[in-house]
């Protein structure tokens, strides 16, 4: 019986104008957006390859370990074609500095910062706005329309029963809505395969299937919403307005208003606290180092000559020594021993403050989520961006990896004794025994043309395997994160379905 009803409903839907409109609109918009975002992805991928090669080359050209400041890049996620998320608004490169814990990827090396203000039009946007809209357009008159045409009484008089009738209408809505959705998604994938030659791995295919499923689930929410409205009121026009209103609330007004309202109610402390601390602590460290350094210089001057050719600044980590006598080299070694703990302590203090600030940002975000929790669009967004790896948390995990890379780098430096006994090799390219021998110094000085040939560029580059590779892989789809929002969407379907079902049982068919 259910199958007969289902077939009848599906056939009826397929013949309507709205189905044709849904099919054409979804298809055109999905193909355009996938096409253009595919191009965009290829451009960003090429840019990423170019920039990371360039960064690797720049690292290889460094001649003195203390001047190492590798840049690590975050590869764009191919699934970002379907859900751009925050990927373009957040930075995608971190400069690993010895005396700074990276708190975010600031360098956005590819995009126009002015465009961050405009949201991208991706598959997620098509699903959120258009599939949902057609979900209610398909079903708003399922019950009221039949009542107006007078067929509802006859339907209810059959043996099918209201329960089956309602279930058939629901299933037909979902099946019919899945046609344009699936078709356009598949054609988008075809475009990617044949126009752009973008290939996905097995895990990414699974994520794509999950996205598809999430799209259908989201569509089902609005099918049940339309049906619910249809069984709550008597006239089609009223049902349409009611469901449109709920649609606008769930898709546009609540998500947008929640961000505005929550940021107005739950204010953030200014980030200038962190910036001020950065300035203040730098001054503190410098004022602490300066007298001791001057003292050290004075002592060495008195003890015996200081003969330096190199660069030194106490404000920046890039100290190096091209040539000098043993007094100069020990001065630098002691300076490193003096500066390193101070700068590391400062970095830790700033990072603590940054972390506190980030916790407060998270608080505000939770507040926004609380405000927009009735909106299904929020959950849809979470599912898509966490599967595509373009949400804030994927970005944060990249920065976390950059931090681990930094502590790995520091670990290597420490293991090599760069901050204490081998500090001479850290700031220059001369082996310690050679640097600390007065005799060798005089020999070098006696070599004709030696002093003039000294420059940073003339030194041999560092060994390539000094630092491990960063191993930047695009972020993996995070399936666990998408479970809860999917469950909430399923709950919404169930809720609207049961309300509608109860209302339909009590419905006056006359």
């Amino acid at each position, binding site marked *: 019986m259910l199958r007969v009803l289902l077939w009848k409903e599906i056939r009826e839907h397929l013949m309507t104008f709205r189905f044709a409109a849904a099919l054409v609109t979804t298809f055109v918009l999905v193909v355009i957006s996938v096409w253009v975002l595919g191009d965009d992805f290829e451009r960003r991928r090429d840019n990423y390859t170019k920039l990371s090669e360039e960064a690797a080359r720049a690292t290889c050209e460094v001649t003195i370990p203390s001047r190492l400041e590798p840049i690590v890049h975050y590869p764009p996620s191919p699934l970002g074609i379907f859900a751009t998320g925050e990927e373009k608004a957040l930075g995608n490169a971190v400069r690993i500095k010895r005396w700074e814990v990276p708190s975010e990827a600031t360098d956005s090396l590819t995009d126009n*910062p*002015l465009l961050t203000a*405009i949201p991208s039009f991706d598959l997620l946007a098509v699903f959120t706005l258009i599939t949902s809209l057609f979900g209610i357009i398909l079903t708003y008159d399922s019950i009221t329309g039949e009542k107006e045409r007078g067929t509802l009484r006859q339907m209810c008089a059959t043996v099918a029963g209201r329960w089956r009738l309602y279930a058939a209408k629901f299933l037909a809505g979902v099946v019919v809505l899945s046609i344009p959705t699936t078709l356009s998604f598949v054609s988008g994938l075809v475009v990617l395969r044949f126009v752009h030659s973008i290939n996905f791995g097995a895990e990414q295919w699974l994520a794509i299937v999950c996205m598809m499923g999430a799209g259908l689930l989201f569509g089902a929410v609005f099918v049940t919403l339309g049906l619910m409205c249809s069984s709550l009121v008597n006239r089609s026009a009223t049902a349409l307005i009611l469901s449109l209103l709920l649609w606008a609330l769930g898709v546009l007004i609540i998500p*947008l208003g929640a*961000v505005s309202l929550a*940021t107005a109610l739950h204010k*953030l402390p200014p980030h*200038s606290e962190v910036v001020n601390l950065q300035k203040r602590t730098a001054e503190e460290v410098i004022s602490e180092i300066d007298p001791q350094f001057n003292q050290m210089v004075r002592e060495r001057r008195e003890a015996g000559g200081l003969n330096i050719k190199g660069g030194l600044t106490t404000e920046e980590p890039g100290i190096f020594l091209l040539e000098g006598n043993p007094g100069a080299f020990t001065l630098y070694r002691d300076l490193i021993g003096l500066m390193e703990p101070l700068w590391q302590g400062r970095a830790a203090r700033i990072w603590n403050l940054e972390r506190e600030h980030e916790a407060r940002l998270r608080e505000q975000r939770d507040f926004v989520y609380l405000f927009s929790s009735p909106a299904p669009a929020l959950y849809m967004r979470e599912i898509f961006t966490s599967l595509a790896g373009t949400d804030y948390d994927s970005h944060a995990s990249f920065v976390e990896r950059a931090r681990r890379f930094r502590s790995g780098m520091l670990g290597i430096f420490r293991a090599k004794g760069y901050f204490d006994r081998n500090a001479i090799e850290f700031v220059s390219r001369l082996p310690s025994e050679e640097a600390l021998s007065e005799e060798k110094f005089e020999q070098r000085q006696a070599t004709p043309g030696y002093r003039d040939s000294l420059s940073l560029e003339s030194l041999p580059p560092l060994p390539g395997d000094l630092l491990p590779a960063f191993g930047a892989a695009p972020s993996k789809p995070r399936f666990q994160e998408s479970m809860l929002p999917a469950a909430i969407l399923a709950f919404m379907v169930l809720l609207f379905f049961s309300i509608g079902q109860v209302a339909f049982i009590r419905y006056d068919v006359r």
Partner: protein
Amino acid sequence: MIPIAKHTMLQSLKDAKFLFLSCLVILAFVVNAFVYSENYGSSFAKWQEAVQVNSSELEQKMGNLQLFAIHYQKMYKPPSAAAFIADGGERELPDTWTVSAFVNMEPEKTIRGNKMLPLLGRFDWGFIVGTLMTLLAFLVSYDAVCGEKQDGTLRHILACPVSRIELFVGKYLGLLAILLLVLILGIAANLAVMLLLGSIPLTEGILWAMGWAFALSVFCLSLTLLFGMLISSLVSHPPVSMVILLVVWILITVAIPGIARLLGEQAVSVMSEFETSREIKAAEKEVMDNASDEAKMQHRDPFHKDFPLRAEMWRSMMAAAQRILDRSNETRLRQFEIVNAFASISPSSLLNSSLQEVVATGAPGFRALKSAASLYQQQLFDFTTRRDAMDPETPHLVYAHYTFTDWGVFSGKPVEPGSYPRAEDLWRAGGLPQEQSQPVWQLVIFLVLNLNMALAAFIALVRYDPR
């Protein structure tokens, strides 16, 4: 004509759906006033703090004109008090420009919002009118003609001594009147809340902006209303016209602006920060290579005392760098503006971009910041040159020579407090730029579109088969 208008108005007013939606719109206006009052207060305080820090840093350099001139100042764009009309992504756009007397750098974002929040759009007048009220306009007009046909009343009306033009104008005026009623009530509520909270200064400039915003909104609503009537008189069943209008509504409010970004990014390519810095290095190297051997030698040796050659080289190096920076900023801005231009096919985007023009947020606001930065740099340079001219002891070579300030390439006399130009003075109260633009062109475009649409809708009605 008048009775038809009255009848249409009354019918809509009696309608529950209309009342419901208009309450929603008015509520949206109230929320808008609340949100932007709160935000303006806090972002204004942040701005003041930043400006304070900048001027206290500048005051430390006032003992020496050279230090003063080469000091990198931060020029902050004041938050726009009129952002409630058109936000234009104020919180995401770069808001700071680094300026010294010799160079203005790349813009950056320093007064930050929460980077974790999704970028969805804004709850400004542009959204309320361009998105919510256009939906309202479509909802009141989708059955204006075909609904009457379905009810069978259209034949009766046409049988009366009422010409079709009277019917058309009457319907149009009636529907427009109720939309205006909602708009005016909304704006009144908006103003009331803002006055109550009192953190947004309702200066003359902002009141003017509100006036322009009202006029533009009326034209935009009238255009969507006419389009609704056109579709309504092209099809014979209200559900069909409803579906068409909803699809069109989605297209004009969401799809077109979104696709415009994608197209704009394809149409204009911008230089990345990385490429910019590489090009600057290359240009500086080129100047170096082309300089005379003597100048090169002087440049390498900081103790060389012959200034004019070195000054010449420094100046041309900085000019080359500035040209590249300007070009990179200009292409970015052009890409942004082209995205806006693509989007302006849709009336609600046209409304948004012209509102941004009025209140100087979004692309126009960024352009204002950019021109203010270069103006300020010019002012600082002129000030330095003027002060230097008063000092008889220098060779008057005003250029950015960083290493030794006591050498006297130009005057190193102290700067009197209050005598120098200040970046904040380039903005009017409420964060508006000195010259407020008036969107006459956009108004004319809206007018022409309205006339065309009215003609099309009228012709469709004349050809409509009322049976």
